[in-house]
């Protein structure tokens, strides 16, 4: 994104959803991310184990 261009609409970068401050907070919240760490690892491990015979 060109930094000095004040008008942002009608550009590709204008259309995707952007994270709110709350979303950014949860993404970096240590306790919540520690919980996510275990949840995601569990999900990945479950997939890996059933992925090949």
């Amino acid at each position, binding site marked *: 994104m060109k930094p000095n261009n004040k008008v942002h609409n009608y550009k590709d970068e204008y259309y995707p959803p952007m*994270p709110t401050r709350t979303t950014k907070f949860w*993404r970096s919240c240590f306790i919540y991310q520690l919980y996510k760490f275990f949840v995601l690892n569990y999900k990945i491990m479950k997939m*890996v184990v059933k992925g090949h015979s």
Partner: protein
Amino acid sequence: MAKVVVLGAGVSGHTAVAFLKKKLGKKHEVVMISPNSYYQWVPSNIWVGIGQMTVDQVRFKLDKVYKKWSVIYKQAKAISINPEGNSEISKGFVTVEYVVGDKQGQQEKVDYDYLVNATGPKLNFEATPGLGPKGHTVSVCAYDHAAHAWEELQKSLALMEQGKHQTFLIGTGHAMATCQGAAFEYALNVAFEVKKRKLEHLADIIWITNEYELGDFGMGGAFVKRGGYVTPTKVFAESILAEYGIRWIKRAGVNKIEKGIAHFETLAGEYKTQEFDFAMLIPGFAGAGIKAFGKDGNDITEKLFKPNGFMTVDADYTPKDFEDWSAKDWPETYQNPEYKNIYAAGIAFAPPHSMSKPMKTANGTPMFPAPPRTGMPSGVIGKVIAQNIANFIKNGATEHKHKASMSRMAAACIVSAGYGIRHGKAATMTVSPIVPDWDKYPEWGRDINATVGEVGLAGHWIKLLLHYMFLHKAKGYPFWWLLPE
């Protein structure tokens, strides 16, 4: 005593050797032939490319590990395969050429009972004039490339510290390139490092890709449950790029690089250019270029390899329209149909077709990502081949007990988006299966409940954990075999 020869010490070949030796023990011979002296954990090269890891943190010497495992290690490159032997050697053999030491330049014939071709990709920089570390761009495909990328990136960062504007062009360097994920990670990490130095007002970071839509990643895209919606990875990828202030050029096949200028063709058939100060572009991949000869010396390369140099295996290669592709087309055992004691693992096997829809530009140039076979699938395939060969040798089995089709196998991809224990970030993406199965999952092509797409600090910790875990496994440290691929 049986003899198994493995070509290539990448993720797939190294995994195959590890499990072959573990299962076959000292009674049988396992030989590794690789021109490389180091094993490298390729996914962490991204962090070498931004100066957050050193080269020695992502690699280790192969000879020590193979000595510990009693694997015969020849630092040589494979030149040709004679699957039927010749007038002097009755068994199949590989002709190799040593690349270091007293034997450098000497050729040797290494016979085998079973052969595993895990030679990985040839980084085909030559397909795009001016591309690569010897040209005008950098790469993160190997640890030395990544170290070079960091040197060049530092120059741009230094210029920005002096108040000079820099344009960063990151993405794919060929209309048929794959490994978008690695380039995507690098773009996010460069943006993260620029922002960390509070220099984003001086940076124009551009993602350039041969994908039809962002988030295709050579898998034809995927769907994830997110925020109460089932969302395509297109939205997921665009969202994170926009958040990081990265703009993008999609449906672009880079065809020539000059100093500071990338030439590309669009899917619409237009020829355009993009200027840059720093460019990291992933090359197209090709097979290792090994030839094959019959008993009387005639060239039988087409019996073992497809024209792109990848090895023919138990896939259904019948040409079909995109709409007729099936998950059943994909191989399960990775055995060559002509020579049953030859297997291909990881990137070395020829996929039956791409996962992304084949497209051509208005000028007729093919433009779509080749299917990815790196990381998790490479390791799983290497292990399954090793288990089957060991079962044949030890138990006299005649059927493949273990199978691993990419149309049943799941994969996790942790897309690093910034390094740091407290402030790092990564997108955790999982797909199950890797190859869409529209018969089994008619709505989304994959199991929507097993498909994950989440951004956060936890993803960075997972990627870091995988770095140490897989290096532990590859070094053969205690209980390595308990760790999954």
